[in-house]
Each structure stands twice: as structure tokens, then as C-alpha cells.
């Protein structure tokens, strides 16, 4: 299965809220927090456990007015970091 076919969801123990053009994210297992910018929280909002990464990129492209190759390149390390932090988890696809 291709990397673009991976499907992510926000970890059930994670809460986040938009505050102006940023968002606060709380991981309640570790009582850790982080701040995401608008693009970051847009990605998190798209992690619904149903859309694969390709569909998420397409949805973000429409919202953020960024071309797909740029977005895909930027998202790769970001997704890896969120996954390592336990903020998101793969529910389908490679690495699942």
C-alpha cells in the first residue's frame, strides 16, 4: 500500500482547539501540549480516520491555496512528527 493511502485519525486521548490562527493541542496521556499553526491544525482536522493522505492533501490544497507537491513535501516530516508524538495514529495503510 502506498504512503499516500495511509489513513490517520487523531489519537482518542488528544484534544485540540483553534485559537485565532493557531491551535492548542493536549495529549492527555502524557499531559503534554503543543501549538500548531493554521496549516497544522487544518491537517489535524482532516485526520478523521476515513480520508487517506492523498484525500487530505487535496482537501488542504483547496483550503490553503498551495500546490500538491509542495504540500506533500511539507507534510511528510510533519506527519512523521505527529505520529511519533502520538498525536495521530494510522488506522490503515503502510506502517499500520
Amino acid at each position: 500500500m502506498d504512503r499516500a493511502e495511509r489513513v490517520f485519525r487523531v489519537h482518542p486521548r488528544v484534544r485540540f482547539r483553534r485559537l485565532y490562527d493557531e491551535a492548542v493541542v493536549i495529549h492527555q496521556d502524557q499531559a503534554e501540549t503543543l501549538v500548531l499553526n493554521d496549516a497544522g491544525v487544518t491537517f489535524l482536522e482532516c485526520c478523521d480516520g476515513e480520508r487517506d493522505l492523498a484525500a487530505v492533501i487535496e482537501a488542504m490544497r483547496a483550503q490553503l491555496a498551495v500546490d500538491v507537491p509542495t504540500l506533500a513535501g511539507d507534510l511528510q516530516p510533519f506527519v512523521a512528527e505527529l505520529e511519533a508524538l502520538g498525536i495521530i495514529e494510522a488506522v490503515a495503510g503502510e506502517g499500520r
Partner: protein
Amino acid sequence: MPEHLARSVRTHAPDRRLRIELAADPALLPPPHSHDLAETTAIECSATAVTLRSDWFRARLDPAGGGAGQLLVHPAGRAYFGGVLENVLRVLVAYDALHRGGVLLHSSALVRGGRAAVLFGHSGAGKSTAAGLGQAAGCEVLSDDINVLIPVTGTWQAYAVPFGVVGAAGERNEPVPLGGLYRLVQAGRDAAVVCTPARAVALLAASAAFVNQDAYRAEALLDTLLELAQRHPVHELHFTRTARFLDRVLPGPGPVEG
């Protein structure tokens, strides 16, 4: 009982009651000879209760105000009872603060000129150091470990709690108006940088002990912290571990020698 919990406090009628029993409950085991209380205590949250448990004690608290609590301790756990009770009370105070629209923060609070500066940050950030420096410079220390912030008729107030105090702190029964919120960052120079609302809430949430792990009260916590941060913008306080920071957080009559 720990000495700092044995102080008499002149207060009004109790807001809560905690029933304590030494119980040979079959579900409780004798405590091991050596253990770390913090590492062996689990907190479980639900919509209606908060439970602290280890092999040898169990506490059940009502997270809403006014409810009664229960603490069961295996009789062989007498030697550790003071520590358990203090932990249970810390959690109880955290939930009580949230219920009142406030928050318990892992923090030091310094008072000068009738206002409190609350300094928070991760373990090792310098909270105790700042409290010691402030006290040496003539500030009162509410607590060097935990402080409670609660809005009272539109004004945020800092309350002393009898946990982890230094010097003569913890004796104050009256709240102090909040003067500022500072997240400590050890640095090579002293400076204060204001945080965005999201960063402020994130930093506060990381120090909002116990309740920041409760999925049932996450929205209430975020609401509270946003209200607090809008009223008192959070600054990141770059701190050289000298008393010079005091002039930024609690301006006094003259400069502080660092």
C-alpha cells in the same frame, strides 16, 4: 501527618468532606517496603468520579464541588498515610479549582506590593530557585510548588495552598490579586516575551496538574485557561537564575541587585 498539613486554618464551614478509613478491604494489599508513591498511583477519570488507586489505597472523589470523598487505606499503609493524604488533597484541590472556574498550577507565586506573580514551567525550570531569590529580596512566597488561581467577581486571585511551601509561606488565608503569569525559561539573559493565546493556553495546560489528563473536563480546562490568558497574557520569562527577574515581574521601589 506531615507538619505542613497539620497547621490550623481558620476558615468557614467546610466545602467538602473526605471520609478516611483504614480498611482491610480484600481489594487492597499491604504496601511494599519501598516504593515511589507518585509512580505507583494511577488516576482514573469518569464523568462522575475521579479515582486514585494503588495496590494499597483507593480514593474516590467527586469532581464537582461540594461532594464527599472517600479514602481507603490498607492498615499496613499507616507509615505512608501522610503522603497519600497529601496527594489526594492535591487532586481534590485541582478539581475544586476547576469547578470554580479556576486552575491549580505547578508554579511558584511571589507577592510584592499586594500583587502575585505566578511563575510556572517544567520540572527544573527554576520555580524553586525563583521563589528562593524572591524571598531573599523581600517578597512573600505563596508556594514554591502549587498555587491555585480562581476568578472572584471578575478578578483573578492567587490562593496559597499548604503544599510544597518554603519559609513562612502557606500561612496566608487571604487571596492575592494576580499580577502576572510567567513561564520560566532558563536563559543567558533576562527578558520577557509575550505569548500568543494558543501558546499561552498550551503552556498553562502543561502545568495544570491532574486535570490536564482528564478527557471529561478538557473543554472546561481550555475554557478556563483561555479566559485566564485573555485577562493576564502569559509571558515567557527568560531567566538567568538571578534576582533581576523581579523587576520585570513585580516592579518594586528600587532595582534588585542580581
